[in-house]
């Protein structure tokens, strides 16, 4: 196999496995707790509001928001790892169709794989830090994935037979 093709195939499947393990591990270790805490916090906020207990209401609502924020990002990391890596894997299969891959094409392969790691990593960092750096890493990763995927797909399309109607 050509080296860029190996990077796409092995890299893509490796990231899929990481995504599956991450999803399973999160589910087993903290997933149920996060959802339960989320529901209980909002439930406690409703109870406190109906009881006129402003202090408990504020605390419970803040806890619920925090869990909501975390849960959205945890699911985001899991799904994006697997979905983007599936596309990387498919591009690995299609890579031989690129007519005369240039150095630029090889660079796009690296950009795609690095972006596929950076994007969910940035989202994961958003869980542990509220720094804008985490958002910047996620945005940069996503941008790398979009541009590299488009560039590689354009090159693959050039190698396809023309689609004259049957």
């Amino acid at each position, binding site marked *: 196999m050509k080296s860029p093709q190996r990077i796409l195939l092995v890299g893509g499947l490796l990231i899929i496995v990481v995504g*599956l393990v991450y999803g399973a591990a999160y589910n087993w270790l903290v997933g149920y707790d996060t959802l339960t805490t989320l529901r209980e916090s909002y439930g406690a906020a409703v109870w406190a509001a109906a009881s006129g207990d402003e202090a408990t209401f504020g605390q419970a609502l803040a806890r619920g928001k925090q869990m909501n924020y975390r849960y959205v990002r945890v699911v985001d990391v899991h799904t994006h790892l697997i979905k983007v890596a599936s596309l990387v894997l498919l591009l690995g299969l299609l890579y031989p169709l690129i007519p005369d891959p240039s150095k630029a094409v090889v660079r796009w392969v690296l950009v795609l794989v690095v972006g596929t790691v950076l994007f969910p990593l940035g989202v994961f960092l958003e869980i542990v830090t509220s720094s804008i750096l985490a958002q910047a890493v996620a945005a940069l990763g*996503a941008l790398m994935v979009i541009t590299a995927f488009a560039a590689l797909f354009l090159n693959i399309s050039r190698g396809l037979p023309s*689609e004259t109607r*049957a």
Partner: protein
Amino acid sequence: MMPGRQGGLFGRRMGSARILVFGGILLIILGMALGEIYAIFISHVGAAEVRQRWVAVVEHIAERQPERAAAEFAAIQQMLVRRGRIVNAHSHIVAFGFLALTFALLQPLLPFSESSKDTLAWSTVAGGCLQAGFVFISGWVGLWANILSDLGMVLVLVGAIGTLRGLVRAQGLRETLEKQMRTLLQPPSSSLLLRAGGLLVILGMVFGFYYAWVFVTEHEPAQFNLLEAGLSSAMAGNVEDASDIILQYRRLQPKIAITVAAHSHAIEMGTMAILLAFIQPFLYLDERWRWRWAWVFIVGSFLMPLFVFLAPRVGLFSAAFADLSGFLALLALSAMLVGAVRGAAVQDVSGGHA
């Protein structure tokens, strides 16, 4: 090209590639059908009930009746948990179907015995069925379903890690893969599906990038602020204001969910079109029909995410068209499955040399 004339992917009767192709397509059809049923019969009805219950929560808070407010809220939570379980099963079944179809294409690269490849293929398909199936029924049958669902996840992991190990060990197969790809993508319908799928994926990605910005800067903070303002207003006894704010909150929540669904559906339908491009030579259908079903799938795939996106902005008219577009894609996929079954049967009858 005569249909059903290629050996590779459908090579052996109940071989690994065949298990993965049929298992993958069946999983995708099941997942899409579940999504359609959920969208048509559960989602719209459920949303109206959740709205009514939120208004009741606000009224009970203002009346200082914690038990009744908590009971209404618990009913909302129960509905959202059920919704989450269905959406979870829907997205996992489709994702496992994609994985199975992709693994089918990797089979010629794996340096394993046929029986090892068959075991990995069964592990992937059976694991996908178990994981998603038991997530779906877990709400009705209890904890043991969660355990079986986790077992399914382990089986999928075994299939994925085994395939990864094979890919790492694969050597000198570039020519095999290149030849296989050129053969697989020879029919005009393959090129059509591949190009359309790639375009749809790119559109879905660009839209997702844009919406991530809107979500983080606008929708997510607004969602939290509206909930706090609504409940605070109810606490202060302003039922009318509180109801108004809570209804804004309830309008925003499905808007977020549906916009995210439009993004993910565009990418999923695009990925599916790319995957379907590879199986075109194995469909025992006339080339004109392959071309027509490819178009039906593409039209459904492009329109579905568009109408899903418009649904909370335009109304039920758009939601109905989203369901119709999804049905078109499902119909085309089912037609391709029939073609694949016929192709495999023809190949078996001719002993793989037809």
